[in-house]
């Protein structure tokens, strides 16, 4: 059963990592605009060097 202590430690460590990532994403405003990035990714690569 001692293995449980290690596993709980690891799972908590991971879960807290996710929470920190989540809090970071909110604080930096990544959840504010969910529409534009989805459209932006569909833009074709820009043909900049066409002369």
């Amino acid at each position, binding site marked *: 059963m001692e293995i449980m202590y290690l596993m709980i430690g690891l799972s908590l460590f991971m879960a807290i990592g996710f929470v920190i990532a989540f809090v970071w994403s909110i604080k930096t405003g990544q959840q504010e605009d969910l529409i534009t990035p989805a459209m932006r990714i569909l*833009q074709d690569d820009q043909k900049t060097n066409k002369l």
Partner: protein
Amino acid sequence: MYTEVLEEVICYHCGDECSETPIIHQEKTFCCHGCEQVYELLNDNQLEEYYNCDLNPGISPTDKNFDFLNNKAFRDRLITFSNADFSKVSFHLPAIHCRSCLYLLENLQKLNPQIIKTSLNFGKKDLTVWFKEDQLSLGALATLIASLGYEPHISNAEEKPQNNDQKKLFLKLGIAGFCAGNAMLFSFPEYLGIDDGSLQALFGYLNLALGSVAVFYSGSDYFSNVYAHLKLHKMTIELPILLGILVGYGRSVFEIISHTGAGYIDSVSGLIFFLLIGKWFQQKSFDFLSFERNYKAYFPLVVTKIANGKEETAPLEEIQVGDRLLIRNQEIIPADAYLLKGQSQMDYSFVTGESELIPIQAGQSIYAGGKHVGEVIEIQINKELNQSHLTQLWEQQAFKDPNHKTENWENFANQVGMYFTVILLSLATIAGIYWFNVDQSRWSNAVVSILVIACPCALAVSYPFALGHGIRWLAKFNFFVKDIQTFERMAQVDTLVFDKTGTLTLQSQQEPSVHFNRDLNDTEWNAIYSLVFQSTHPLSKQVKKFLQNRSIIPLTEFKEISGKGLQASFDDLFVQIGSAKYTLNKLNTPEGFISSETRLFVSINQEPIGFIEFPWENRPGVEGMLHSLRHQYEVHLISGDKKEHAAHLLDWFENQDQVKFECSPLEKMEYIQALQKQGKIVAMIGDGLNDAGALKQAAVGIAVSDDHLHFTPSSDAILKGSELPRLGEYMRYSKFGLQLIKASFLLSLVYNGFGLSYAIQGNLYPLIAAILMPINSISMLVIATWGMNWKGQLLSRSKIRIKAE
């Protein structure tokens, strides 16, 4: 050589139908030079990809100049950040609509090297630009963006950006989810009956830590809200919820610390998670709409001032009493003033709802909010901006107190919440005292189970979900409701008050009718067409549209006489168009005849010919709507217009007490107040600034908007004009929503009743209560979602059916 006959020529840039003579450039057709220029600009800068993202994506550009933004007052307000290298500014661009817009606006740096980068928020239609301000002024930047067809909407100083607490709510929601998920994990051994003392203790303490975060961080709003309401001696639905949470949490703390059990932190944090999902769901915000807008939003941002004999532009805020301003055709008067030079036809329809133009001579007063029609005039301001006749309306109580709509209004949840709390607390006390005396081992179980199982979380869940779905569905039908509280008030409305001009009636789409004494020959028609072509008067524009296929003949001695009409000579023809008197026509109006039209008289070579009539007409479908609404609601009509202009509408208002004409904006507001004094719950449906007071005063103010959804007076809901005939159905939908909530509340009461009967006997273990609680919540969520979606589907099907017919 061959000639191609095209049925319909579409502009390559904006997709509009081109006139008979489209502009052709590089084998592409354009409706106007503006569109062609944008195409050329994009083509020269290798941005032609714009046209591949979507078909004819463009917007016909305006040549509006935004140099006034360089004025310090504007610059300081708009620039959000500035250092030696770059400045950052955000513009609201209402014209953004497709993928091509995104492509173009995020490649602006290719059009002007002084632009460093741009970033678009499509949902909010906001464009943020980083640019080198020392080489490209703010005004020039805005003008560039406008020249592409995306005219920035420069908000007034007082139009605050909608701030949202969404970030905080998201954080709380995420943390609650994390706590609930992990607490469930740590509760598993308990459910599975694994017996290991040290592990149980560890899990217990971990759960305790998670539960404390969930209750005191994620659930913190419940503490502050309940406290705020108790201070006002009010009990809301949040009180029993908080009690349930606290009792569940307290019992868990006791069990864990005393090693007598595992507690049920998982249920408590799960409940908080559910409640927060509900809160998040009810916060549907329409970022692209503004529900708060005062009179200043209608005024120009800058005016042309005459100082020391020179014309200069100045921000509106800097205008003082005594300043002299130049007002051009179609511009709005910003403050009460005297007319110094020139003559004006003042259009007060926006302020008063009256459809007739009022002639003003030099020396007479003019009021803020009027729209000037005619040649350039010079005015002198005689009252400060915020003291004008028009703005007095905004000094009324309803405008000063932002909460007046909700203050004396009890929503269903809170009404129920009070009784619920009292009954619940007395039940728990009685059961507690009884068991304390009979069987001491059971009293705490009984009390805890009662408080936990009866926690009205069902109501707290079905509420936001049912109403949240409601406003989402209505938004699909172009009926944008501000929040779920408005949706609920809509369900309680029993009286509807309509504005006339612009709401029920529209300037007619119908052909104007011609009432001439004799037939005109082609030359004479062409002469009339050529004459109106020179003028920008609204009626001239309509005649122009009416006579579309005439050709223009050269004219001499053109004269526009303000307030009277137009005249010009064509070879041997002398044509006059305008008022009856001016054109020597007689007003042959039979006695008792009610005119609901605007007329334009014509004379040729001093010979009276007759008139062209432009009818006002009811918005299509309003008769049917009024007919069906009459059965369920008390329907009123108020208008700033004269009674004769509404003859064709009066049939639909059986009781003449329910109709009032020639109301000022203030009288409209008082009319609503009078109805409210009789205990009625009123919804006001209006469109213009003249309805602003009434919209504000009514329990639900619905602004009707035709083309630009982004230009409506302050209101609780915005309805697209074409949807007005279906207003009754939408009101019924809101009623359905509330009925659904009541029904599911009853169901949960039955549910709770069973649980309670066990709990009072002390037979229900708190653990079972804690499991029943989330099940109850989930079933409420399912009922609310399913019910509102089912009814919404029905609504959208009936809409399609009507369209097909």
